[in-house]
Structure formats: structure tokens, C-alpha cells
């Protein structure tokens, strides 16, 4: 009996918190920040940010992207943490690719001391500039359709 009471109490508490966060997301969201995952790296991002990616990456200039691997979103009054990624119907991060270039010539030198093994390479990698346009948050926290892993 005592365990059931505790479960009911926790449910009620969590529902109250969810309602409060939903209200925070609807009322005046203000500036948002997010942590997004691109090519194995995580970036903390605000609207109008610039991100550089030093790798061969197919998207070209003027392409518009939606980043769906959002690990965390936050405003001035709330934060949502994904486990590990937030569902798509809650957050979306938009960005455009502005500029593609090559980096400066990097020196890649490899040697094993006391043995005649050495390798010298000069490398210029591809550089991609991403501009983050917008972070959008949808107040759908209590609506858990098609999301199985959140509640079991």
C-alpha cells in the first residue's frame, strides 16, 4: 500500500513539473541554446552561431539543414536533457551552409625513434562553415505519441 502511494505521489509531481516546463516553452521562450551532434563532435549552439567542420562532408553551399541529433535544449527558465537524444517532435535546429574552403597546410609527421621509419605529409583538409539560423521548441512534453523508450 505504501509503495502504491509513493508511485502516485511521484506521478503527480512529475506531471506538475511537465506542465510547468510546457508553460515555460509556450509563454515567452526567449533565446534558446542547444547541444547538437555533428560528425562525432558536440557543439553548444545559439541562433546566428558559426560552426566549422574540418572534414570531407558532402553538403554544399546554400544547402539548408535540419539537425535532428539534439542532446540538450535550454532556455533561461528550463532545460531538457535527452537520453541520449531528444525526440524530433520537441526540438529542431536549423542551419545553412555558407562557405566551403580548405584549411591551411598542416604538417603530418610520423616517426619511430632509433628506427628508419619516418613519414612526412602536407595536408589541406576541407572546411565547411555552418550558420545556425534558428532553434525551435514545440511544447509537446506531455504528448508522448510514438515515443516508446521514454515510458516503459
Amino acid at each position, binding site marked *: 500500500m505504501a509503495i502504491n502511494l509513493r508511485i502516485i505521489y511521484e506521478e503527480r509531481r512529475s506531471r506538475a513539473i511537465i506542465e510547468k516546463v510546457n508553460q515555460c516553452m509556450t509563454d515567452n521562450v526567449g533565446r534558446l541554446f542547444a547541444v547538437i551532434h555533428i560528425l562525432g563532435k558536440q557543439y553548444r549552439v545559439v541562433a546566428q552561431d*558559426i*560552426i566549422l567542420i574540418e572534414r570531407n562532408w558532402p553538403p554544399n553551399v546554400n544547402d539548408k539543414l535540419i539537425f535532428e541529433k539534439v542532446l540538450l535544449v535550454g532556455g533561461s527558465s528550463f532545460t531538457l536533457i535527452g537520453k541520449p537524444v531528444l525526440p524530433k517532435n520537441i526540438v529542431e535546429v536549423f542551419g545553412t*551552409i*555558407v562557405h*566551403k574552403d580548405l584549411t591551411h597546410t598542416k604538417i*603530418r609527421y610520423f616517426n619511430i625513434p632509433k628506427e628508419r621509419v619516418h613519414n612526412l605529409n602536407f595536408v589541406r583538409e576541407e572546411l565547411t562553415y555552418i550558420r545556425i539560423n534558428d532553434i525551435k521548441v514545440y511544447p509537446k512534453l506531455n504528448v508522448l505519441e510514438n515515443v516508446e523508450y521514454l515510458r516503459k
Partner: protein
Amino acid sequence: MSNKCLLIPSGFPRLPLKNGIGRVVCQLKRITIKFCKSSGSSQGVRNFIELDLLDFTNNNPEVVIYLKPRRHHSPVVISEYLNGERHYMNFHNFTRDNTNKWLNFLRTRVGIKTIRFRKLQHTELPSIQGVWSPFTNKSPELNITSFPNEKFLQPKHLPESATERLRKMFERQKLKESEEMKMNNKSIEVQQ
């Protein structure tokens, strides 16, 4: 190791004219292609001009292209950008595909000089919820207390000692005994 270089100037990533916040503006202003009409080193460039140049111009109407035939010179491409930067590139013995690729590379550039980046990110707003300090989300109890205080002298999580546990057991036992005594007394009263 690879990012350390003494001779190349270093800096932080910026973009000219807030490019990309609204629409993306092509920063390439004009391209001048110098080539030879007869020599073999500009064969690929000539093929490009014959077959691909009109497509290139149709796809990029904001770029002006000049063609300058120069006798017995290797082909050269000079690109000029909106920020006034000039980029010179030699196309000696380039194939048609190669010229296409490198002209597209010049098109996608913004005209920033190549520098070594100290950071791969730029933000105008480094913090939104406020910068963290050791006193954030802490109770302001520390501000009121006067030191030395016994509560704060103790370690935070002290494990229970054996004597303490014994004392507690003894107290529990005493409670039990007293309850039993009460029960016995009650039963005696009822019997009477």
C-alpha cells in the same frame, strides 16, 4: 601537433557581412581566365571554355567572367571577392574536370585569407542561463553563519561509528522493554 604552425597567422572564425543569417550571398565578384589558344598546357581550360563555361555562367548569374587569350602563357585564374580580396591560381596542365572542380572551389569561397583557427566555433552569446560559479544553486546559509561553526567543521558525510550504533540499539531495546511493561500493566488492570 598539426595545428601548431609558427609562420601562418592565427585567428577566429568570422563571416563577412553577417552572411547566411538571411540568405546566402555569393561573395565571388569576378573571375578572369587567362589562357593560350595554341599551347598544350591550356588544353583542359580551352575544353572547359568550349563545353562547360555557359552552364557555369547560367548557374551563377552574379559572377562576371572575363576571358583573356595570352600567347604562349600557362593558364591562370584570378578571382576577386566582395571584400576586395584577390586569389591567384595557376591552372597549368589542368584537365577539363579539374578546371571545373577548382572553379567551383573558388566560387564557394568567401574570400577570407587562409589562417590557422584557434577555435572552430563563434558565438555572440556565450551564456544564456548565467555563468556558473561555485555558489550557484547553493543555499545562502553560509552568508548568515558566524565562524567557527561546529556544523561546518565536521566532514559532510561522516560514517556511523560503532559506539553510536550500539547506543541506538540500546535505546531501541529500552523502548521495547518499556512497551512490554506497559502492556503487562494494562493486562493486569483488566484482570483486576
